[in-house]
């Protein structure tokens, strides 16, 4: 219990406190609060991905599939049947969790690159299906959510700050789930699987079930993020919501640059990458076509080369983090 107020926890608490107070300092309808909300939403998405990518060590490049399933499920339920997105969000989570379970059967025997490619293909298939089923999904035109004034029961607000706080709540919840999974009994199983799958199996770990559980939870949380994204932006189309570079790779990238498998990684990663992208766009997009993406890419490569274990490695090297780890292993 002496670790209750460890520096790591204090830093995390400070982060959430600062995030909760931030809207008071920003123009509630301005651009900056939208960027801040996006930082938190991408942190939540990356943390959801981190359950599969970091804890189970299955590098998925197809999480956009679950993101899009969440967005389409809640939005279609709302547009066609008038179901509030609050309920649609839960249905989307179930649909995405089911899809993840189905996808697990053929893909969990695959390792490394092959697993990544299979998940990537799954998201691409979803994108093609959404584009071609025009009657249901609206096809390439996408779906718009009509705004009919501020209606909390229908997940619609006039002020960006309301979305911001909902997204912050979502991020806290996803981080709590991640922490419970990482530190609970399933966390030990996942760690055993990650370290050495054969050894885990002969030590009595049902490796398939452990990976399946992580995968379903990760997909369900990602779908919730998808619903929130759809409500926040009021519009999405298949190419943006099932995007490989915009969603799938970005979720993985944020977690990896921040620190794979760590609780703080996705927070640090999103805090670093999303504003960086914004700045690169603002400063460079008027200079030459593609220059901002180029600069962003160069910085990303640099970050990975300089610290392959992610930005969290810098925190773990500080004396505060070290004392905590020493205390934890000595216990």
């Amino acid at each position, binding site marked *: 219990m002496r670790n209750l107020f460890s520096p790591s926890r204090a830093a995390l608490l400070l982060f959430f406190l600062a995030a909760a107070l931030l809207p008071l300092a920003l123009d509630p309808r301005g651009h900056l609060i939208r960027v801040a909300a996006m930082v938190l939403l991408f942190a939540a998405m990356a943390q959801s991905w981190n359950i599969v990518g970091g804890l189970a060590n299955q590098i998925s490049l197809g999480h956009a599939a679950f993101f899009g399933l969440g967005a389409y499920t809640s939005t279609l339920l709302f547009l066609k049947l008038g179901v509030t997105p609050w309920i649609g969000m839960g249905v989307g989570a179930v649909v995405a969790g089911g899809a993840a379970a189905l996808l697990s059967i053929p893909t969990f025997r695959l390792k490394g690159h092959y697993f990544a490619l299979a998940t990537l293909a799954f998201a691409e298939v979803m994108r093609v299906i959404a584009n071609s089923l025009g009657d249901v999904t609206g096809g390439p035109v996408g779906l718009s959510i009509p705004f009919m004034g501020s209606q909390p029961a229908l997940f619609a607000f006039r002020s960006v700050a309301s979305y911001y706080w909902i997204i912050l709540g979502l991020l806290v919840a996803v981080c709590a789930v991640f922490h419970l999974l990482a530190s609970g009994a399933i966390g*030990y*199983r996942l*760690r*055993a699987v990650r*370290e*050495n799958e*054969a*050894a885990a*199996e*002969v*030590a*009595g*770990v*049902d*490796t398939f079930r452990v990976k399946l559980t992580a995968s379903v939870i990760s997909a369900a949380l990602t779908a919730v993020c998808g619903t929130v994204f759809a409500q926040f932006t009021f519009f999405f189309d298949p190419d943006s919501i099932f995007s490989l570079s915009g969603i799938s790779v970005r979720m993985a990238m944020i977690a990896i640059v921040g620190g794979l498998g760590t609780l703080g990684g996705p927070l640090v990663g999103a805090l670093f990458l999303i504003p960086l992208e914004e700045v690169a766009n603002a400063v460079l997009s008027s200079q030459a076509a593609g220059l901002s993406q180029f600069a962003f890419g160069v910085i990303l490569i640099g970050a990975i080369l300089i610290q392959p274990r992610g930005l969290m490695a810098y925190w773990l090297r500080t004396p505060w983090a070290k004392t905590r780890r020493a205390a934890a*292993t000595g216990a």
Partner: protein
Amino acid sequence: MLEIRNLCAAYGGPDVLSSVTLEVKAGETVAVLGANTAGKTTLLRTISGLVARARGSVTFEGTELIGRPAHTIPALGLGHVPEGRHVFPRMTTLDNLKMGAFFHRGAGDIAQRIQRVFALFPRLEERQGQMAGSMSGGEQQMVSIGRALMGNPKLLLLDEPSHGLAPIVVDELHAAIGAINRQGVAVLLVEQNAVLALSVAHRGYVLEAGHVVLSGDAQALSADHGVRRAYLGV
């Protein structure tokens, strides 16, 4: 205790084991000898439920193991030390050991079990805080055996424990296997090092291309002309 009847196993191609019949009695150490590709590892993997396509019968204390999910088998009292020292590399020695007791029932007296492993392998006590991946091959093998012992097995399956180790470490392991057996744990030992295997075993089987071609007392096998020429290098 362990009875194998007409066991056939394959990975999708031709049978790697054909009609193997083998028995381990309580308290016994049984060696399985054979060249590479004879099917020794497959035999142990099939017992542990890691080979999907198996026919025949493997019963452990009356429980049929064929068709049983692999992760449920350690809890029956069967410990498997896989070939190639599969330790959890980025965990400490102590955590590796705890993992062995963590996942099945009756894992109460963990501290006592750790002491038992440390008594067998004093080096692990010295290195308990070290990352398993950074230890020598022999030490990793000790971790791997220790982890299997943490599940309190009645029967220990050892797959090539001496493989790739220095002679002095092999002697140490050899002594440990004998000590484990004297504690009442039956051992099924797969070895290419027939000298080592027959010196600790009570009985032995010789596997060739998936068939049992010879079996008998360890002493009788050691004296057998064919075994001496093929596996003992004399």
